[in-house]
């Protein structure tokens, strides 16, 4: 890992160079339908992008697991069926000014996408992407990245992390991909004052999020598993509409549906679409039986999957603490508050709930 100093002009030139070479560049820009929100969108020049102002309303997930994508095309002929599988390679693209939570979310989801079977569609895009993150200074009251072991300056999932300093940026170069992107750019000598300023900015950002929620202890996963049948789940989900908005905007929710769409009399596509465990038909059997028939069972699944099942299986909490679900929820379900309450219960009753 190395560091480099980039001036604003050098960064602007880098984006121009990439765009000229027909590389897709993506960065947060003011949303077309709502100037108060940011969306990750393709840009032509750096000036279009907004750096570190706030967490974009949707995560980077859609660039790796699109809301809908074609898995294969089929044509039915007299002789049978011909299949054309979707290509697994993607053209290279660069993401600028990703929030560190979004970048790390991709790294967390990599684990399930590579669980015995490699999802080449996901990894084709992962390999094609170079991610330049930006020190997050946009945290609000529902941010809790430090609670899940990440942080506003986390390197995880990023190829480069930019920290704004006087006259430009201190670039932490994290991976060979980041190295390749910044090859010959900027200066290797970094003024001591810039280094010091970056450190101050990074630790100030961390402290700000840390104040929202304490770090989730390792034992929490086991406590949740033990308390699968605790009555607390019935109370927790009372305000949940089961709309699934939380899953759509979540950087780590990766559940999907597979459906066929018939285009004409003999052709069509098989698609993968985002899906959510919060909707009532997610687990519904054709027989009518539903293993998660009520909203409290579905909400329990969401919490258990993120904070117990995934950590037990893959060693990572399936949550980046980005706070989007709390911002998007029409019922006011506030994940950091809920996790905070559960942590308090776990502390008070480490051996399991008294109602067990």
């Amino acid at each position, binding site marked *: 890992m190395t560091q480099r100093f980039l001036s604003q002009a050098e960064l602007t030139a880098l984006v121009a160079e990439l765009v000229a070479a027909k590389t897709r560049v993506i960065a947060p820009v003011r949303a077309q339908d709502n100037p108060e929100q940011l969306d990750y969108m393709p840009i032509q020049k750096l000036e279009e992008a907004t750096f570190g102002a706030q967490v974009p309303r949707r995560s980077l997930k859609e660039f790796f697991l699109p809301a809908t994508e074609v898995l294969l095309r089929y044509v039915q002929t007299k002789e049978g069926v011909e299949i054309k*599988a979707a290509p697994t390679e993607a053209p290279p693209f660069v993401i600028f000014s990703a929030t560190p939570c979004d970048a790390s979310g991709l790294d967390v989801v990599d684990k399930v996408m590579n669980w015995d079977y490699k999802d080449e569609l996901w990894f084709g895009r992962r390999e094609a992407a170079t991610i330049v993150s930006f020190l997050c200074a946009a945290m609000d009251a529902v941010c809790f990245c430090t609670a899940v072991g990440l942080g506003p300056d986390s390197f995880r999932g990023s190829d480069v992390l930019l920290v704004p300093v006087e006259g430009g940026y201190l670039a932490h170069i994290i991976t060979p991909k980041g190295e390749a992107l910044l090859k010959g750019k900027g200066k290797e000598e970094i003024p001591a004052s810039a280094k010091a300023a970056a450190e101050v900015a990074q630790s100030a950002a961390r402290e700000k999020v840390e104040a929202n929620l304490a770090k989730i202890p390792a034992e929490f996963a086991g406590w949740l598993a033990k308390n699968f049948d605790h009555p607390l789940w019935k109370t927790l989900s009372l305000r949940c509409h089961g709309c699934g908005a939380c899953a759509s905007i979540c950087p780590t929710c990766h559940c*999907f549906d597979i459906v066929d769409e018939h285009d004409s009399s003999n052709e069509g596509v098989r698609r993968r679409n985002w899906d959510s465990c919060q909707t009532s038909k997610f687990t519904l059997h*054709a027989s009518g039986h539903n293993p998660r028939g009520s909203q409290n069972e579905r909400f329990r699944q969401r919490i258990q999957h993120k904070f117990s099942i995934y950590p037990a299986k893959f060693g990572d909490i399936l949550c980046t603490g980005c706070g989007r679900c709390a911002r998007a929820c029409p019922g006011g379900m506030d994940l950091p508050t809920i996790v905070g309450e559960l942590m308090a219960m776990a502390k008070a009753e480490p051996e399991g709930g008294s109602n067990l």
Partner: protein
Amino acid sequence: MNIYQPYLMSIKEITDETVDTRTFRLEFKDPEVAEKFTFNAGQFGEYSVFGEGESTFCIASPSTRKGYIECSFKASGKVTRALRRLSVGDTLGFRGPYGNNFPLDNVMKGHNMLFIAGGIGLAPVRSVIWTCLDQRDQFKDVTIVYGARSVGDLVYKRELEEWGKRSDINLCLSVDPGGETPDWKGKIARIPTAVEESGVKAEDTFAVICGPPIMIKFTLPVLTKLGFPADHIYTTLENRMKCGLGKCGRCNIGPTYVCKDGPVFTAAQIRALPQEF
């Protein structure tokens, strides 16, 4: 090729098992795949009708027979209804084999076997039965207890007849009270009673059981009463799935993924699962 791309198979034979249950014999279109394809009894696949989607069920044929697979399904959802509209010679998609299997080779060989099935639950059990019968000398006594709501609901009738004639199988057929026909020669009892009265011994015996949840619920205590330890009772679970590969996130029962940790579980493992299935 990506992991969601199915093999193409053609329907070689269609057998109507009951009014609503049908069996397909399927052969791989690509001779290279046909040559290489292997599976173990208990594994499942994603079967697809192009334009309608995919549906999950077990492979119902034995792993000892190469070159084809069979599946049995009941028309109950969009895809299974579409499967019913297919004819001999039509093409469907198949992804698999997925999941774990019944441990015939490493656990059950050399012991007595008790197979218990209700209704279409015989499909996965049939795969194990034939795999076992194809190497009959490797197993001791084989007992099959099979029942359905009515005579009309019994599946694989020709095979039931064949099993009934074999001297190396103890077959007990049963229908629920009221489901018998005037010429019915089998038992008239529900499965738990049929198992209890079958005279089967728990000692040195492994049980394989599959059927509706209510049947399993009332049969497990009978097996326990007969002296079967929970880790000698195997069953296979079903849950809604999309990928079959551990990614789409809907078949898990708490921390256990039916598609990857299952579908085959012992009664001991099922007892340890959260009550969410």
